């Protein structure tokens, strides 16, 4: 192995040269940082500056490069040196843009820059160029679970993009929920009339596509492996099993309607009180003619009750049903009222809503129904009686009176219940009980596993983790489609409540995510959010005490256990968050470019001023997914914050190892601040999973006012190492 050669490059552009003493920085890099090559440049990120670095790499055999310039999130294309290890000292966003202007602050500004150069050099010394995971996985086929509108769209889009696709559908025909519809709400302008569902055409395209293989009457008996090498056992109703190897999975298992018989307070279960699916069935039977009830009577008046058993106490019903809005039902009722009006304008249709929610172009659809004479009334329904003559009792919220209306048919707009499979918290609980020897728990697990969709062999459970209300999502806003199982993407109403148009868009997005996952897996790289990262967790098994912390804490279910209870890493499932590294009490897990040492050495490199100098030092460990970008933003907007803080980006707060806190306090820091998401927020990737003693310190950390006063504090993972790291309590 060739010798390592370390080099530091200091930029004096972007005003750095005016605000900082570059000579001092050079000296520090050389003397304290022990860099063999130290150069500065007035414009490091331009072609000439980059060429200078490339020349050194080529001619001087430089293997390690520290760039002391802007934030590591800036100029990533210019500073792209794939053949060397690299660290970045953030002097622009992290120093000159956030330290107050003026000579009075020259000294603290320079001290801050000096420290960041020391830290950049110290980190570099401990880094290695990631060699890449030799264990690549090459299947680029995509499995789609569910043959409804979302699944069909995902399969079709993936195939059109050139990827072989396997589609598994439980029923004997494609179509799912869409097959139960007479018409759909319009996708296109003028958004005035119900449209054909488009299912027949799409299903035909999928069935005849040369790259798509369809398995009907089938479900997944087992899913094992990782992105790029999933092995799924597809079980036919008959019991026959087919094995397929796929690279990524789109789960589009949709939803079921909320059970109408659970709504007796709204007439659920009585004759001529139907849910929206029930009305679709009547409309399909009528085939464009007069819609008839189950008893054959032609419907002359229909009442639609919105939010039936939805939106908690804000909707209609007892308030003890679904707490959310399913999003599609207002437009669906509008569409269904049109079924009547279009066939015979004299049929009376009343839609009772508390808030008519028709986002986007749905407003045009609503107007169109008003044109057709559908009556909309803001009402709280108090009772519904079914039977031959139905009666809906309600409070008219505009006229402020209790009244009632008679109808031939009452339609309840019930909600979507996701078909996400097994709920993992309950499963984990039962597994623990079963491990403890409970036979009852073992029985329950068997029953529970029958409801599984994926039947994953992961130690974390057989299905995708559910975020809220049973929906399989990671986070609605930040990471759409990205469930907490890498390479498995949820699309459509199984992910969050949605209508058909949204489901098709969702499915297309999920197909693209799946493609991203298989491509990265085949190159041995991280899928996301560190897309393209070649590092991966390395474990020194000799030192492992089989404590299982890493396997339990990995938020992405990347680690299994072997028979001897040693962790088995599935690198393709890994997101490089480092949570396992933070969890490991004996610190045997590391990455080539991110380890207990790379951060620990930075902490120790900070120069501590004299205790009585009134210049405290606060260490901030900032999550690179949210906090560090926010700090960069603070710099961009020239927000001044304390020059006494020293910030180290971490891959996730989960990767923080308690030893860092101890190191910080031992080396003289006055406090440590954790900046990222707080427990229970499941904000980015579900990583804020372990509580800190002062939760508020993670969330409301304000670098403008670090704990410099009497109350200095340090966060510590107290359940791992209780009573350590508390500064002054």
């Amino acid at each position, binding site marked *: 192995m060739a010798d390592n050669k370390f080099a530091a490059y200091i930029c004096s552009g972007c005003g750095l040269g005016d605000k900082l003493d570059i000579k001092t920085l050079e000296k520090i890099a050389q003397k304290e940082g022990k860099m063999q090559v130290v150069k500065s440049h007035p414009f490091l990120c331009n072609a000439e500056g980059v060429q200078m670095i490339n020349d050194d790499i080529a001619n001087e055999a430089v293997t390690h490069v520290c760039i002391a310039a802007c934030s590591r999130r800036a100029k990533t294309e210019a500073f792209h040196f794939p053949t060397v290890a690299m660290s970045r000292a953030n002097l622009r966003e992290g120093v000159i843009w956030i330290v107050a202007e003026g000579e009075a602050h020259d000294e603290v500004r320079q001290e801050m820059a000096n420290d960041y150069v020391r830290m950049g050099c110290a980190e570099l010394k401990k880094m290695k160029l990631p060699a890449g995971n030799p264990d690549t996985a090459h299947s680029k086929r995509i499995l789609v679970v569910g043959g409804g509108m979302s699944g069909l769209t995902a399969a079709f889009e993936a195939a059109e993009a050139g990827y072989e696709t396997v589609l598994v559908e439980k029923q004997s025909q494609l179509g799912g929920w869409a097959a139960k519809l007479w018409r759909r709400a319009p996708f296109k302008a003028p958004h005035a009339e119900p449209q054909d569902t488009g299912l027949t055409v799409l299903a035909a395209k999928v069935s005849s596509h040369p790259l798509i293989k369809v398995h009907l009457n089938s479900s997944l008996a087992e899913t094992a492996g990782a992105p790029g090498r999933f092995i799924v056992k597809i079980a036919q109703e008959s019991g026959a099993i087919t094995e397929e190897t796929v690279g990524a999975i789109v789960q589009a298992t949709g939803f079921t309607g909320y059970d109408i018989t659970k709504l007796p307070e709204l007439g659920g279960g009585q004759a001529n009180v139907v849910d929206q699916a029930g009305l679709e069935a009547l409309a399909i039977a009528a085939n464009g003619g007069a819609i008839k009830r189950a008893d054959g009577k032609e419907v002359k*008046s229909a009442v639609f009750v919105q939010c039936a058993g939805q939106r908690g106490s804000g909707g209609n019903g007892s308030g003890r049903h679904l707490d959310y809005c399913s999003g599609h039902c207002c437009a669906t009722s509008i569409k269904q009222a049109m079924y009547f009006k279009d066939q015979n304008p*004299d049929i*009376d249709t*009343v839609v009772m809503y508390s808030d*008519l929610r028709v986002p986007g172009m749905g407003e045009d659809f*609503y*107007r169109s129904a*008003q*044109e057709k*004479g559908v*009556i*909309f*009334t*803001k009402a709280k329904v108090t009772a519904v009686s079914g039977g031959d003559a139905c009666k809906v009792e309600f409070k*008219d919220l*505009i*006229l402020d009176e209790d*009244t*009632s*209306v*008679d109808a031939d048919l009452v339609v309840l707009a019930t909600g979507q219940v996701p078909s996400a499979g097994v709920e993992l918290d309950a499963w984990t609980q039962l597994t623990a009980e079963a491990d403890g020897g409970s036979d009852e728990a073992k029985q329950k697990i068997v029953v529970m596993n029958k409801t599984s969709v994926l039947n994953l062999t992961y130690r974390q459970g057989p299905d995708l983790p559910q975020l809220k209300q049973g929906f399989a999502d990671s986070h609605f806003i930040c990471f759409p489609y990205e469930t907490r199982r890498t390479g498995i993407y949820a699309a459509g109403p199984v992910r969050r409540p949605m209508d058909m148009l949204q489901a098709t868009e969702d499915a297309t997005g999920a197909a693209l995510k799946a493609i991203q996952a298989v491509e990265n897996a085949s190159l041995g790289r991280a899928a996301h959010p560190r897309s393209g990262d070649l590092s991966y967790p390395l474990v020194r098994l000799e030192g492992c005490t089989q404590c299982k912390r890493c396997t339990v804490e990995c938020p992405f279910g990347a680690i299994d256990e072997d028979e001897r209870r040693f962790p088995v890493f599935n690198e393709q499932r890994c997101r490089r968050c480092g949570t396992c590294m933070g969890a490991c009490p004996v610190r045997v897990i590391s990455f080539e470019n991110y380890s207990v040492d790379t951060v620990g050495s930075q902490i120790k490199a900070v120069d501590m001023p004299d205790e009585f100098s009134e210049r405290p030092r606060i260490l901030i460990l900032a999550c690179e997914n949210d906090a560090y970008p926010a700090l960069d933003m603070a710099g961009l907007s020239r927000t001044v914050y304390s020059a006494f803080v020293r910030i180290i980006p971490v891959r996730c707060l989960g990767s923080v190892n308690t030893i860092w806190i101890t190191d910080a306090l031992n080396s003289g820091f006055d406090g440590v601040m954790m900046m990222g998401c707080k427990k229970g927020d499941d904000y980015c990737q579900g990583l804020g999973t372990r509580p800190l003693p002062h939760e508020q310190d993670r969330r409301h950390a304000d670098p403008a006012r670090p704990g410099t006063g009497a109350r200095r504090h340090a966060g510590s993972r107290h359940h791992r190492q209780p009573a350590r790291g508390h500064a002054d309590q």
Partner: protein
Amino acid sequence: MSNANVQANLSNLARYQNNFLKEVEANVEEGHMVKMCMQCGVCAGSCPFGPDWEHSPQKIFMMIRAGKRDEVLGSDSMFMCTSCYNCIVRCPRQLPITHIMHGLANYAHRIGMAPKGQPTRQFATLFWNNLVKKGRVNELTLTLGHYFTNGLVSGIKTALGMQSIGLGLFMAKRLNPMEIFGGHGVKDLKGFHAIVAKAKEIEDRKKGFTA
């Protein structure tokens, strides 16, 4: 009694059905726009008279859709509109609310359901009759007529109370006492009467009134 019951039953049947809405669409100026109201309440909040009416425009529209024929046509709310156009300007659904208010008032008046003794309605009738007679408004007779709508005694009292203003107008040559004897008309009075008769005929035809 039994008749009233039948009435009640009928209106019961019509609740939240399209019967009355259709009647309004057929007979009331801009009545076809009533169904387009989305019940946002912006008009109710914009109307300077909002707090003083029994029913805001928003409510009137919902009442029409709820089939409350008697309550709507017997209401004096529409007569309270001052045509300030605040509501029209603000309605997000672009309902010509002011026009609908006057259309409703007019319709209720024509079919005899408008409240008796409603002052706006009375004054409007007085104004119209005064205007139609000579083709121009006779201010003296209009004013006096207005004073005496509530009976002789109160009329005299009001007239006496307004004495000094009348005198002032007279001195400034803005009031001619001779107008009390019929007053002067427009040039072609016959032609004017023909125009009014034709207009009424057209309106009746459009709204389905048989003369």
